Protein backbone atom coordinates (compact mmCIF):
# COMPACT_ATOMS: atom_id res chain seq x y z
CA UNK A 1 0.00 0.00 0.00
CA UNK A 2 2.85 2.35 0.88
CA UNK A 3 4.36 1.58 -2.52
CA UNK A 4 1.11 2.44 -4.16
CA UNK A 5 0.82 5.85 -2.48
CA UNK A 6 4.50 6.51 -3.12
CA UNK A 7 4.06 5.98 -6.85
CA UNK A 8 1.01 8.23 -6.93
CA UNK A 9 2.94 10.99 -5.12
CA UNK A 10 5.85 10.78 -7.61
CA UNK A 11 3.46 10.63 -10.56
CA UNK A 12 1.47 13.67 -9.44
CA UNK A 13 4.61 15.72 -8.80
CA UNK A 14 5.85 15.01 -12.33
CA UNK A 15 2.34 15.50 -13.66
CA UNK A 16 2.40 19.07 -12.36
CA UNK A 17 5.44 19.79 -14.54
CA UNK A 18 3.88 18.06 -17.54
CA UNK A 19 0.76 20.16 -17.02
CA UNK A 20 2.75 23.36 -17.40
CA UNK A 21 4.52 21.95 -20.46
CA UNK A 22 1.18 21.16 -22.08
CA UNK A 23 -0.70 24.32 -21.04
CA UNK A 24 0.97 26.58 -23.59
CA UNK A 25 0.38 24.05 -26.34
CA UNK A 26 -3.32 23.77 -25.61
CA UNK A 27 -3.71 27.54 -25.26
CA UNK A 28 -2.19 28.15 -28.71
CA UNK A 29 -4.31 25.41 -30.24
CA UNK A 30 -7.44 26.88 -28.66
CA UNK A 31 -6.98 30.33 -30.11
CA UNK A 32 -5.19 29.68 -33.39
CA UNK A 33 -6.11 26.06 -34.20
CA UNK A 34 -2.40 25.44 -34.76
CA UNK A 35 -0.98 22.14 -33.54
CA UNK A 36 2.38 23.55 -32.58
CA UNK A 37 4.97 20.82 -33.05
CA UNK A 38 7.62 23.44 -32.22
CA UNK A 39 6.37 23.73 -28.64
CA UNK A 40 8.69 21.09 -27.12
CA UNK A 41 11.82 22.60 -28.67
CA UNK A 42 10.79 25.94 -27.16
CA UNK A 43 10.67 24.20 -23.78
CA UNK A 44 14.21 23.01 -24.36
CA UNK A 45 15.27 26.50 -25.42
CA UNK A 46 13.82 27.79 -22.14
CA UNK A 47 15.72 25.07 -20.29
CA UNK A 48 18.94 26.32 -21.89
CA UNK A 49 18.21 29.88 -20.70
CA UNK A 50 17.88 28.63 -17.12
CA UNK A 51 20.84 26.29 -17.51
CA UNK A 52 23.21 29.04 -18.57
CA UNK A 53 21.90 31.49 -15.96
CA UNK A 54 22.59 28.81 -13.37
CA UNK A 55 26.03 27.91 -14.71
CA UNK A 56 27.23 31.48 -15.23
CA UNK A 57 25.57 33.42 -12.42
CA UNK A 58 24.43 30.65 -10.06
CA UNK A 59 20.82 31.77 -10.45
CA UNK A 60 18.35 29.20 -9.13
CA UNK A 61 16.17 27.73 -11.94
CA UNK A 62 12.96 28.55 -10.07
CA UNK A 63 14.10 32.14 -9.67
CA UNK A 64 15.12 32.34 -13.32
CA UNK A 65 11.75 30.98 -14.44
CA UNK A 66 10.28 34.45 -15.16
CA UNK A 67 13.41 35.37 -17.13
CA UNK A 68 13.15 32.21 -19.25
CA UNK A 69 9.45 32.96 -19.75
CA UNK A 70 10.09 36.53 -20.89
CA UNK A 71 12.93 35.54 -23.22
CA UNK A 72 10.79 32.84 -24.80
CA UNK A 73 7.81 35.21 -25.01
CA UNK A 74 9.94 37.48 -27.21
CA UNK A 75 11.15 34.50 -29.27
CA UNK A 76 7.52 33.46 -29.71
CA UNK A 77 6.49 36.91 -30.94
CA UNK A 78 9.40 36.98 -33.42
CA UNK A 79 8.63 33.48 -34.74
CA UNK A 80 4.97 34.39 -35.09
CA UNK A 81 5.80 37.57 -37.00
CA UNK A 82 8.24 35.80 -39.31
CA UNK A 83 6.43 32.55 -39.97
CA UNK A 84 2.84 32.31 -38.84
CA UNK A 85 1.39 35.76 -39.51
CA UNK A 86 0.64 34.99 -43.16
CA UNK A 87 -0.88 31.63 -42.27
CA UNK A 88 -2.97 33.02 -39.43
CA UNK A 89 -4.56 35.55 -41.78
CA UNK A 90 -6.09 32.82 -43.91
CA UNK A 91 -9.25 31.47 -42.37
CA UNK A 92 -8.54 27.81 -42.96
CA UNK A 93 -5.62 26.01 -41.38
CA UNK A 94 -4.42 22.97 -43.20
CA UNK A 95 -1.89 20.20 -42.77
CA UNK A 96 0.60 22.69 -44.18
CA UNK A 97 0.49 24.69 -40.95
CA UNK A 98 1.43 21.62 -38.96
CA UNK A 99 4.32 21.00 -41.35
CA UNK A 100 5.34 24.62 -40.89
CA UNK A 101 5.59 24.20 -37.13
CA UNK A 102 7.52 20.98 -37.77
CA UNK A 103 9.98 22.94 -39.91
CA UNK A 104 10.33 25.59 -37.19
CA UNK A 105 11.05 22.80 -34.72
CA UNK A 106 13.79 21.45 -37.01
CA UNK A 107 15.32 24.91 -37.34
CA UNK A 108 15.53 25.41 -33.59
CA UNK A 109 16.73 21.84 -33.10
CA UNK A 110 19.58 22.50 -35.51
CA UNK A 111 20.42 25.89 -34.01
CA UNK A 112 20.48 24.64 -30.42
CA UNK A 113 22.39 21.53 -31.47
CA UNK A 114 25.02 23.65 -33.19
CA UNK A 115 25.31 26.10 -30.33
CA UNK A 116 25.30 23.70 -27.37
CA UNK A 117 25.89 20.24 -28.93
CA UNK A 118 23.68 17.24 -28.23
CA UNK A 119 25.14 16.35 -24.83
CA UNK A 120 22.82 15.65 -21.91
CA UNK A 121 22.60 18.58 -19.55
CA UNK A 122 20.90 19.19 -16.24
CA UNK A 123 20.95 22.07 -13.79
CA UNK A 124 21.78 20.90 -10.31
CA UNK A 125 20.50 23.26 -7.62
CA UNK A 126 21.17 21.79 -4.16
CA UNK A 127 17.56 20.68 -3.61
CA UNK A 128 17.46 18.63 -6.83
CA UNK A 129 19.04 15.64 -5.08
CA UNK A 130 17.30 15.98 -1.70
CA UNK A 131 14.04 14.52 -0.55
CA UNK A 132 11.50 15.08 2.21
CA UNK A 133 10.49 12.00 4.20
CA UNK A 134 7.16 11.29 5.88
CA UNK A 135 7.62 7.95 7.59
CA UNK A 136 7.84 5.36 4.81
CA UNK A 137 7.04 7.84 2.08
CA UNK A 138 9.31 10.38 0.46
CA UNK A 139 9.02 13.10 -2.11
CA UNK A 140 12.05 14.47 -3.98
CA UNK A 141 12.39 18.18 -3.23
CA UNK A 142 13.16 19.05 -6.84
CA UNK A 143 9.97 17.51 -8.15
CA UNK A 144 7.94 18.95 -5.28
CA UNK A 145 9.20 22.49 -5.87
CA UNK A 146 8.80 22.11 -9.62
CA UNK A 147 5.25 20.85 -9.17
CA UNK A 148 4.35 23.72 -6.85
CA UNK A 149 5.96 26.32 -9.14
CA UNK A 150 4.20 24.88 -12.14
CA UNK A 151 0.79 24.87 -10.46
CA UNK A 152 1.38 28.47 -9.33
CA UNK A 153 2.08 29.54 -12.92
CA UNK A 154 -1.00 27.67 -14.13
CA UNK A 155 -3.11 29.32 -11.42
CA UNK A 156 -1.80 32.70 -12.54
CA UNK A 157 -2.65 31.83 -16.14
CA UNK A 158 -6.17 30.78 -15.22
CA UNK A 159 -6.62 34.00 -13.20
CA UNK A 160 -5.39 35.99 -16.19
CA UNK A 161 -7.81 34.22 -18.54
CA UNK A 162 -10.76 34.54 -16.14
CA UNK A 163 -10.41 37.99 -14.67
CA UNK A 164 -8.74 40.32 -17.15
CA UNK A 165 -10.23 41.96 -20.21
CA UNK A 166 -7.56 40.51 -22.44
CA UNK A 167 -8.09 37.05 -21.00
CA UNK A 168 -11.76 37.48 -21.76
CA UNK A 169 -10.86 38.31 -25.36
CA UNK A 170 -8.66 35.21 -25.58
CA UNK A 171 -11.47 32.99 -24.32
CA UNK A 172 -13.90 34.58 -26.74
CA UNK A 173 -11.52 33.93 -29.63
CA UNK A 174 -11.13 30.32 -28.51
CA UNK A 175 -14.88 29.81 -28.53
CA UNK A 176 -15.62 31.43 -31.86
CA UNK A 177 -13.06 33.34 -33.81
CA UNK A 178 -15.45 35.00 -36.27
CA UNK A 179 -17.99 36.00 -33.64
CA UNK A 180 -15.22 37.46 -31.46
CA UNK A 181 -14.02 39.53 -34.39
CA UNK A 182 -17.55 40.79 -35.02
CA UNK A 183 -17.79 41.82 -31.36
CA UNK A 184 -14.78 44.06 -31.81
CA UNK A 185 -12.01 41.79 -30.54
CA UNK A 186 -8.74 42.45 -32.31
CA UNK A 187 -8.25 38.83 -33.30
CA UNK A 188 -4.85 39.44 -34.89
CA UNK A 189 -3.49 40.97 -31.69
CA UNK A 190 -5.06 38.22 -29.58
CA UNK A 191 -3.38 35.60 -31.79
CA UNK A 192 0.07 37.09 -31.59
CA UNK A 193 -0.07 37.72 -27.82
CA UNK A 194 -1.50 34.25 -27.18
CA UNK A 195 1.22 32.67 -29.25
CA UNK A 196 3.77 34.68 -27.26
CA UNK A 197 2.18 33.61 -23.97
CA UNK A 198 2.12 30.00 -25.13
CA UNK A 199 5.82 30.05 -25.96
CA UNK A 200 6.48 32.00 -22.73
CA UNK A 201 4.79 29.19 -20.80
CA UNK A 202 7.05 26.79 -22.67
CA UNK A 203 10.02 28.85 -21.44
CA UNK A 204 8.74 28.73 -17.86
CA UNK A 205 8.24 24.98 -18.16
CA UNK A 206 11.77 24.75 -19.57
CA UNK A 207 13.21 26.29 -16.41
CA UNK A 208 11.58 23.51 -14.39
CA UNK A 209 12.49 20.82 -16.91
CA UNK A 210 16.13 21.87 -16.62
CA UNK A 211 16.41 20.30 -13.17
CA UNK A 212 13.65 17.69 -13.22
CA UNK A 213 14.77 15.91 -16.40
CA UNK A 214 18.06 15.94 -18.23
CA UNK A 215 17.72 17.55 -21.64
CA UNK A 216 19.39 17.91 -25.02
CA UNK A 217 18.05 19.48 -28.24
CA UNK A 218 17.10 16.26 -30.06
CA UNK A 219 14.99 15.13 -27.10
CA UNK A 220 12.06 17.28 -28.19
CA UNK A 221 10.86 14.74 -30.78
CA UNK A 222 10.00 12.41 -27.93
CA UNK A 223 8.25 15.20 -26.06
CA UNK A 224 6.11 16.10 -29.06
CA UNK A 225 4.33 12.78 -28.77
CA UNK A 226 4.25 12.92 -24.97
CA UNK A 227 2.74 16.41 -24.83
CA UNK A 228 0.30 15.60 -27.62
CA UNK A 229 -0.98 12.61 -25.67
CA UNK A 230 -1.67 14.84 -22.64
CA UNK A 231 -3.42 17.48 -24.70
CA UNK A 232 -5.42 14.99 -26.74
CA UNK A 233 -6.56 13.13 -23.63
CA UNK A 234 -8.00 16.30 -22.13
CA UNK A 235 -9.45 17.50 -25.41
CA UNK A 236 -7.52 19.82 -27.73
CA UNK A 237 -7.70 23.44 -26.63
CA UNK A 238 -9.14 22.74 -23.19
CA UNK A 239 -6.78 24.00 -20.47
CA UNK A 240 -8.41 22.09 -17.60
CA UNK A 241 -8.37 18.99 -19.78
CA UNK A 242 -4.65 19.29 -20.46
CA UNK A 243 -3.89 19.61 -16.73
CA UNK A 244 -6.03 16.62 -15.84
CA UNK A 245 -4.58 14.64 -18.73
CA UNK A 246 -1.06 15.43 -17.52
CA UNK A 247 -1.81 14.28 -13.97
CA UNK A 248 -3.53 11.08 -15.12
CA UNK A 249 -0.91 10.02 -17.65
CA UNK A 250 2.08 10.95 -15.50
CA UNK A 251 0.70 8.80 -12.68
CA UNK A 252 0.03 5.98 -15.12
CA UNK A 253 3.58 6.27 -16.44
CA UNK A 254 4.94 6.14 -12.89
CA UNK A 255 3.09 2.84 -12.36
CA UNK A 256 4.39 1.42 -15.62
CA UNK A 257 7.89 2.54 -14.72
CA UNK A 258 7.73 0.77 -11.36
CA UNK A 259 6.00 -2.46 -12.30
CA UNK A 260 7.08 -3.04 -15.90
CA UNK A 261 10.33 -1.14 -16.35
CA UNK A 262 11.65 2.39 -16.82
CA UNK A 263 12.17 1.91 -20.56
CA UNK A 264 8.45 1.43 -21.08
CA UNK A 265 7.27 4.44 -19.09
CA UNK A 266 7.47 6.79 -22.11
CA UNK A 267 5.69 4.11 -24.12
CA UNK A 268 2.65 4.68 -21.87
CA UNK A 269 2.14 8.12 -23.36
CA UNK A 270 2.47 6.95 -26.98
CA UNK A 271 0.16 3.99 -26.58
CA UNK A 272 -2.28 6.16 -24.63
CA UNK A 273 -2.24 8.60 -27.55
CA UNK A 274 -3.25 5.84 -29.98
CA UNK A 275 -5.92 4.49 -27.68
CA UNK A 276 -7.42 7.94 -27.04
CA UNK A 277 -7.40 8.85 -30.72
CA UNK A 278 -9.15 5.59 -31.55
CA UNK A 279 -11.66 5.42 -28.73
CA UNK A 280 -12.46 9.03 -28.02
CA UNK A 281 -10.68 11.34 -30.49
CA UNK A 282 -12.29 14.45 -29.02
CA UNK A 283 -10.74 13.73 -25.60
CA UNK A 284 -12.33 13.65 -22.16
CA UNK A 285 -13.79 17.15 -22.30
CA UNK A 286 -14.00 17.63 -26.05
CA UNK A 287 -17.13 18.32 -27.97
CA UNK A 288 -17.63 15.54 -30.52
CA UNK A 289 -19.10 17.94 -33.07
CA UNK A 290 -16.00 20.12 -33.05
CA UNK A 291 -13.91 17.44 -34.75
CA UNK A 292 -15.34 18.00 -38.21
Amino acid at each position, binding site marked *: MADFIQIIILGLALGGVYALMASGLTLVFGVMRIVNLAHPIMIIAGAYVSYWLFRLYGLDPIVSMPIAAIVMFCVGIIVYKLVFEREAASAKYS*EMTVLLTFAVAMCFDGLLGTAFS*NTQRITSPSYATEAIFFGDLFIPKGQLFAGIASLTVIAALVAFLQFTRFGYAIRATTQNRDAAQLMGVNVGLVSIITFGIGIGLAGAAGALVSFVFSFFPAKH*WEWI*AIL*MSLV*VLGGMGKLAGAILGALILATLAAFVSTYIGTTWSTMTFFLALFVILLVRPQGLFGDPLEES
Partner: protein
Amino acid sequence: MNTHLDVGEVVEARKSREQALAGTAAAGRPTWVPIALLAVLVMLPAIQVFDGFNYVLHLGLYALMYIAMSSSWNILGGYTGYISLGHNVFFCIGGYFSGMILAYTGISTLLTAPFAGLAASLVGFGIGFITLRMRGPTFIISSIALLMVARILFDNWSFVGGANGVTLPQLTIDVQWAKLPYYYAMLFIAAAAVYCSFRIKHSKFGLHLRAISQDEVKAESAGINTRFYKMLAFAISAFFVGMAGAVWGEYLTYIRPNIFLIILIAANMVLMCILGGKGTVAGPIVGTIVLIAFNEFFVATMGSSEINIFGTGLVMILALLYFPNGIVGTLAQKKKLPRFLDWD
Protein backbone atom coordinates in the same frame (compact mmCIF):
# COMPACT_ATOMS: atom_id res chain seq x y z
CA MET B 1 -41.05 11.82 -81.54
CA ASN B 2 -38.36 9.62 -80.32
CA THR B 3 -36.26 11.52 -77.80
CA HIS B 4 -35.13 8.33 -76.22
CA LEU B 5 -31.37 8.41 -75.77
CA ASP B 6 -29.53 5.16 -75.94
CA VAL B 7 -27.45 4.85 -72.78
CA GLY B 8 -24.96 2.63 -74.53
CA GLU B 9 -24.38 5.30 -77.16
CA VAL B 10 -23.70 7.96 -74.53
CA VAL B 11 -21.26 5.71 -72.76
CA GLU B 12 -19.57 4.92 -76.05
CA ALA B 13 -19.32 8.60 -76.98
CA ARG B 14 -17.89 9.46 -73.57
CA LYS B 15 -15.41 6.62 -73.80
CA SER B 16 -14.15 7.66 -77.22
CA ARG B 17 -13.84 11.28 -76.11
CA GLU B 18 -11.88 10.27 -73.03
CA GLN B 19 -9.64 8.10 -75.16
CA ALA B 20 -9.04 11.01 -77.52
CA LEU B 21 -8.14 13.24 -74.57
CA ALA B 22 -5.82 10.60 -73.13
CA GLY B 23 -4.31 10.21 -76.60
CA THR B 24 -3.43 13.89 -76.92
CA ALA B 25 -2.04 13.91 -73.38
CA ALA B 26 0.07 10.85 -74.18
CA ALA B 27 1.27 12.41 -77.46
CA GLY B 28 2.36 15.56 -75.64
CA ARG B 29 4.08 13.68 -72.87
CA PRO B 30 7.86 13.75 -73.09
CA THR B 31 8.35 10.03 -72.57
CA TRP B 32 11.91 10.31 -73.82
CA VAL B 33 13.02 12.32 -70.75
CA PRO B 34 12.62 9.60 -68.13
CA ILE B 35 13.98 7.02 -70.57
CA ALA B 36 17.03 9.14 -71.36
CA LEU B 37 17.53 9.81 -67.64
CA LEU B 38 17.32 6.10 -66.93
CA ALA B 39 19.82 5.36 -69.70
CA VAL B 40 22.28 7.90 -68.31
CA LEU B 41 21.93 6.45 -64.82
CA VAL B 42 22.43 2.90 -66.11
CA MET B 43 25.63 4.00 -67.86
CA LEU B 44 26.91 6.11 -64.95
CA PRO B 45 28.93 3.35 -63.20
CA ALA B 46 31.09 3.10 -66.32
CA ILE B 47 33.14 6.03 -65.00
CA GLN B 48 34.39 3.66 -62.30
CA VAL B 49 36.68 2.16 -64.96
CA PHE B 50 38.97 5.08 -64.14
CA ASP B 51 38.37 4.46 -60.41
CA GLY B 52 38.12 7.26 -57.88
CA PHE B 53 34.46 8.03 -58.56
CA ASN B 54 33.08 6.02 -55.66
CA TYR B 55 31.72 9.16 -54.05
CA VAL B 56 29.79 10.05 -57.21
CA LEU B 57 28.28 6.58 -57.18
CA HIS B 58 27.47 6.89 -53.49
CA LEU B 59 25.73 10.19 -54.12
CA GLY B 60 23.84 8.67 -57.05
CA LEU B 61 22.74 5.73 -54.93
CA TYR B 62 21.70 8.04 -52.10
CA ALA B 63 19.70 10.23 -54.48
CA LEU B 64 18.03 7.19 -56.05
CA MET B 65 17.09 5.93 -52.61
CA TYR B 66 15.43 9.21 -51.77
CA ILE B 67 13.74 9.37 -55.18
CA ALA B 68 12.22 5.97 -54.44
CA MET B 69 11.18 7.03 -50.94
CA SER B 70 9.76 10.44 -51.78
CA SER B 71 7.91 9.13 -54.85
CA SER B 72 6.53 6.46 -52.62
CA TRP B 73 5.59 8.96 -49.93
CA ASN B 74 3.91 11.01 -52.64
CA ILE B 75 1.34 8.26 -53.18
CA LEU B 76 0.08 8.75 -49.64
CA GLY B 77 1.05 12.35 -48.91
CA GLY B 78 0.63 13.87 -52.35
CA TYR B 79 -2.27 11.98 -53.93
CA THR B 80 -4.25 11.04 -50.82
CA GLY B 81 -3.34 14.08 -48.72
CA TYR B 82 -2.39 12.16 -45.58
CA ILE B 83 0.90 13.61 -44.33
CA SER B 84 2.95 10.96 -42.55
CA LEU B 85 5.98 12.07 -40.57
CA GLY B 86 6.76 8.53 -39.46
CA HIS B 87 7.24 6.86 -42.83
CA ASN B 88 10.78 5.81 -41.99
CA VAL B 89 9.24 3.16 -39.74
CA PHE B 90 8.79 1.16 -42.98
CA PHE B 91 12.33 1.99 -44.00
CA CYS B 92 13.39 0.41 -40.73
CA ILE B 93 11.12 -2.62 -41.08
CA GLY B 94 12.46 -3.29 -44.57
CA GLY B 95 16.04 -2.88 -43.41
CA TYR B 96 15.62 -5.19 -40.45
CA PHE B 97 13.60 -7.81 -42.32
CA SER B 98 16.22 -8.33 -45.01
CA GLY B 99 19.13 -7.55 -42.73
CA MET B 100 18.21 -10.28 -40.25
CA ILE B 101 17.77 -12.81 -43.08
CA LEU B 102 21.22 -11.84 -44.34
CA ALA B 103 22.76 -12.11 -40.88
CA TYR B 104 21.28 -15.56 -40.18
CA THR B 105 21.21 -17.27 -43.59
CA GLY B 106 23.60 -15.25 -45.71
CA ILE B 107 21.04 -14.59 -48.45
CA SER B 108 21.77 -11.16 -49.93
CA THR B 109 19.24 -8.42 -49.34
CA LEU B 110 19.22 -7.78 -53.07
CA LEU B 111 17.20 -11.00 -53.39
CA THR B 112 15.03 -10.55 -50.32
CA ALA B 113 14.27 -6.84 -50.84
CA PRO B 114 10.88 -7.46 -52.51
CA PHE B 115 9.84 -9.56 -49.53
CA ALA B 116 11.05 -6.81 -47.21
CA GLY B 117 8.82 -4.47 -49.20
CA LEU B 118 5.92 -6.87 -48.79
CA ALA B 119 6.57 -7.14 -45.05
CA ALA B 120 6.64 -3.35 -44.79
CA SER B 121 3.40 -2.99 -46.72
CA LEU B 122 1.69 -5.67 -44.63
CA VAL B 123 2.67 -3.79 -41.49
CA GLY B 124 1.61 -0.58 -43.23
CA PHE B 125 -1.80 -2.06 -44.01
CA GLY B 126 -2.20 -2.99 -40.35
CA ILE B 127 -1.02 0.37 -39.04
CA GLY B 128 -3.15 2.17 -41.59
CA PHE B 129 -6.16 0.24 -40.30
CA ILE B 130 -5.68 2.05 -36.99
CA THR B 131 -4.16 5.43 -37.83
CA LEU B 132 -6.06 6.25 -41.02
CA ARG B 133 -9.25 6.67 -39.01
CA MET B 134 -7.78 9.98 -37.97
CA ARG B 135 -7.70 12.97 -40.22
CA GLY B 136 -5.59 16.08 -40.65
CA PRO B 137 -3.31 17.17 -37.80
CA THR B 138 -4.29 14.18 -35.67
CA PHE B 139 -2.93 11.81 -38.31
CA ILE B 140 0.38 13.69 -38.37
CA ILE B 141 0.68 13.46 -34.58
CA SER B 142 -0.13 9.76 -34.63
CA SER B 143 2.55 9.20 -37.27
CA ILE B 144 5.17 10.87 -35.06
CA ALA B 145 3.97 8.75 -32.13
CA LEU B 146 4.33 5.68 -34.34
CA LEU B 147 7.94 6.59 -35.02
CA MET B 148 8.60 6.94 -31.28
CA VAL B 149 6.93 3.60 -30.52
CA ALA B 150 9.03 1.91 -33.21
CA ARG B 151 12.19 3.49 -31.85
CA ILE B 152 11.55 2.19 -28.32
CA LEU B 153 10.64 -1.28 -29.63
CA PHE B 154 13.71 -1.64 -31.84
CA ASP B 155 16.01 -0.16 -29.18
CA ASN B 156 14.89 -2.81 -26.70
CA TRP B 157 14.38 -5.85 -28.94
CA SER B 158 17.34 -8.04 -28.07
CA PHE B 159 16.77 -10.47 -30.97
CA VAL B 160 17.73 -7.73 -33.44
CA GLY B 161 20.59 -6.48 -31.30
CA GLY B 162 18.78 -3.67 -29.51
CA ALA B 163 20.29 -0.21 -29.82
CA ASN B 164 23.65 -1.65 -30.93
CA GLY B 165 22.13 -3.31 -33.96
CA VAL B 166 23.64 -6.08 -36.01
CA THR B 167 26.72 -6.12 -38.21
CA LEU B 168 26.10 -7.66 -41.61
CA PRO B 169 28.53 -9.71 -43.72
CA GLN B 170 30.08 -7.84 -46.62
CA LEU B 171 30.24 -8.84 -50.24
CA THR B 172 33.67 -9.96 -51.32
CA ILE B 173 34.15 -7.74 -54.34
CA ASP B 174 36.93 -5.38 -55.21
CA VAL B 175 36.40 -1.93 -53.63
CA GLN B 176 36.36 -0.39 -57.07
CA TRP B 177 33.14 -2.22 -57.97
CA ALA B 178 31.72 -2.77 -54.49
CA LYS B 179 29.00 -0.15 -54.82
CA LEU B 180 27.70 -1.42 -58.14
CA PRO B 181 25.19 -4.10 -57.05
CA TYR B 182 23.55 -1.71 -54.59
CA TYR B 183 23.57 1.12 -57.09
CA TYR B 184 21.67 -0.96 -59.65
CA ALA B 185 19.32 -2.28 -57.01
CA MET B 186 18.44 1.26 -55.92
CA LEU B 187 18.09 2.32 -59.55
CA PHE B 188 15.63 -0.51 -60.09
CA ILE B 189 13.65 0.39 -56.98
CA ALA B 190 13.57 4.09 -57.84
CA ALA B 191 12.48 3.42 -61.42
CA ALA B 192 9.78 1.04 -60.21
CA ALA B 193 8.55 3.55 -57.63
CA VAL B 194 8.34 6.38 -60.14
CA TYR B 195 6.63 4.17 -62.74
CA CYS B 196 4.19 2.94 -60.11
CA SER B 197 3.45 6.49 -59.01
CA PHE B 198 2.83 7.44 -62.67
CA ARG B 199 0.52 4.49 -63.28
CA ILE B 200 -1.42 5.16 -60.09
CA LYS B 201 -1.91 8.79 -60.98
CA HIS B 202 -3.44 7.77 -64.33
CA SER B 203 -5.64 5.02 -62.98
CA LYS B 204 -9.08 4.98 -61.47
CA PHE B 205 -7.40 4.16 -58.17
CA GLY B 206 -5.41 7.41 -58.39
CA LEU B 207 -8.63 9.27 -59.13
CA HIS B 208 -10.15 7.80 -55.98
CA LEU B 209 -7.11 8.90 -53.98
CA ARG B 210 -7.28 12.45 -55.29
CA ALA B 211 -10.98 12.56 -54.52
CA ILE B 212 -10.16 11.55 -50.94
CA SER B 213 -7.55 14.29 -50.67
CA GLN B 214 -9.98 16.94 -51.85
CA ASP B 215 -13.03 16.03 -49.82
CA GLU B 216 -13.18 12.73 -48.06
CA VAL B 217 -16.81 12.97 -47.00
CA LYS B 218 -17.97 13.75 -50.52
CA ALA B 219 -15.77 11.02 -51.93
CA GLU B 220 -17.36 8.57 -49.58
CA SER B 221 -20.87 9.65 -50.46
CA ALA B 222 -19.95 9.27 -54.14
CA GLY B 223 -19.52 5.58 -53.37
CA ILE B 224 -15.75 5.35 -53.02
CA ASN B 225 -14.65 2.93 -50.34
CA THR B 226 -12.33 5.56 -48.86
CA ARG B 227 -11.19 3.41 -45.95
CA PHE B 228 -9.94 0.61 -48.21
CA TYR B 229 -8.31 2.91 -50.77
CA LYS B 230 -6.49 4.89 -48.09
CA MET B 231 -5.15 1.70 -46.57
CA LEU B 232 -4.09 0.44 -49.98
CA ALA B 233 -2.29 3.72 -50.69
CA PHE B 234 -0.58 3.44 -47.31
CA ALA B 235 0.53 -0.13 -48.04
CA ILE B 236 1.83 0.72 -51.52
CA SER B 237 3.73 3.71 -50.23
CA ALA B 238 5.26 1.52 -47.51
CA PHE B 239 6.33 -1.08 -50.11
CA PHE B 240 9.03 0.89 -51.91
CA VAL B 241 10.26 2.51 -48.71
CA GLY B 242 10.70 -0.96 -47.23
CA MET B 243 12.59 -2.17 -50.30
CA ALA B 244 14.91 0.83 -50.19
CA GLY B 245 15.55 0.14 -46.51
CA ALA B 246 16.53 -3.46 -47.22
CA VAL B 247 19.20 -2.48 -49.75
CA TRP B 248 20.39 0.49 -47.68
CA GLY B 249 21.02 -1.76 -44.66
CA GLU B 250 23.32 -4.14 -46.52
CA TYR B 251 25.01 -1.23 -48.28
CA LEU B 252 25.95 0.29 -44.92
CA THR B 253 27.02 -3.20 -43.66
CA TYR B 254 25.19 -2.74 -40.39
CA ILE B 255 21.66 -2.11 -39.19
CA ARG B 256 20.89 -0.08 -36.14
CA PRO B 257 17.75 1.78 -35.02
CA ASN B 258 19.44 5.17 -35.13
CA ILE B 259 20.26 4.97 -38.83
CA PHE B 260 16.67 4.23 -39.82
CA LEU B 261 14.49 5.75 -37.14
CA ILE B 262 15.64 9.33 -37.04
CA ILE B 263 13.25 12.15 -37.79
CA LEU B 264 15.60 13.70 -40.35
CA ILE B 265 14.93 10.85 -42.81
CA ALA B 266 11.17 11.30 -42.52
CA ALA B 267 11.59 15.06 -42.81
CA ASN B 268 13.73 14.65 -45.93
CA MET B 269 11.12 12.46 -47.60
CA VAL B 270 8.39 14.99 -46.90
CA LEU B 271 10.47 17.98 -47.81
CA MET B 272 11.72 16.54 -51.11
CA CYS B 273 8.18 15.79 -52.12
CA ILE B 274 6.85 19.23 -51.13
CA LEU B 275 9.82 21.08 -52.59
CA GLY B 276 9.39 19.38 -55.95
CA GLY B 277 5.63 19.52 -55.94
CA LYS B 278 3.44 17.05 -54.12
CA GLY B 279 0.93 15.17 -56.16
CA THR B 280 3.03 15.38 -59.33
CA VAL B 281 5.09 12.55 -60.80
CA ALA B 282 8.23 14.56 -61.55
CA GLY B 283 8.04 16.60 -58.34
CA PRO B 284 9.72 14.15 -55.94
CA ILE B 285 12.59 13.65 -58.40
CA VAL B 286 13.19 17.37 -58.84
CA GLY B 287 12.84 17.92 -55.09
CA THR B 288 15.31 15.14 -54.29
CA ILE B 289 17.94 16.47 -56.67
CA VAL B 290 17.54 20.05 -55.41
CA LEU B 291 17.63 19.10 -51.73
CA ILE B 292 20.59 16.73 -52.04
CA ALA B 293 22.54 19.31 -54.00
CA PHE B 294 21.69 21.85 -51.32
CA ASN B 295 22.70 19.47 -48.54
CA GLU B 296 26.02 18.69 -50.21
CA PHE B 297 26.69 22.39 -50.59
CA PHE B 298 25.76 22.97 -46.95
CA VAL B 299 27.99 20.18 -45.69
CA ALA B 300 30.87 21.23 -47.94
CA THR B 301 30.78 24.84 -46.78
CA MET B 302 29.62 24.51 -43.17
CA GLY B 303 30.57 20.96 -42.21
CA SER B 304 28.71 19.74 -39.10
CA SER B 305 25.52 17.76 -39.28
CA GLU B 306 23.62 19.80 -36.68
CA ILE B 307 23.59 22.89 -38.86
CA ASN B 308 22.29 20.63 -41.61
CA ILE B 309 19.10 20.06 -39.62
CA PHE B 310 18.73 23.82 -39.34
CA GLY B 311 19.24 24.18 -43.10
CA THR B 312 16.65 21.51 -43.87
CA GLY B 313 14.17 23.22 -41.56
CA LEU B 314 14.83 26.62 -43.09
CA VAL B 315 14.35 25.35 -46.65
CA MET B 316 11.14 23.69 -45.51
CA ILE B 317 9.79 26.92 -43.99
CA LEU B 318 10.63 28.91 -47.12
CA ALA B 319 9.18 26.24 -49.40
CA LEU B 320 5.94 26.03 -47.41
CA LEU B 321 5.52 29.80 -47.19
CA TYR B 322 6.42 30.76 -50.72
CA PHE B 323 6.03 27.61 -52.85
CA PRO B 324 3.36 25.50 -51.18
CA ASN B 325 2.81 23.77 -54.52
CA GLY B 326 6.49 23.03 -55.02
CA ILE B 327 8.68 23.75 -58.02
CA VAL B 328 6.78 21.63 -60.54
CA GLY B 329 3.39 22.53 -59.09
CA THR B 330 4.02 26.28 -59.07
CA LEU B 331 5.42 26.30 -62.61
CA ALA B 332 2.48 24.25 -63.84
CA GLN B 333 0.06 26.66 -62.20
CA LYS B 334 1.68 29.58 -64.01
CA LYS B 335 1.66 27.55 -67.23
CA LYS B 336 5.43 27.94 -67.43
CA LEU B 337 6.33 24.31 -66.84
CA PRO B 338 9.00 23.28 -69.35
CA ARG B 339 7.87 20.40 -71.56
CA PHE B 340 10.55 18.04 -70.31
CA LEU B 341 9.24 18.21 -66.76
CA ASP B 342 5.59 17.68 -67.64
CA TRP B 343 5.38 13.98 -66.83
CA ASP B 344 1.80 13.92 -65.59
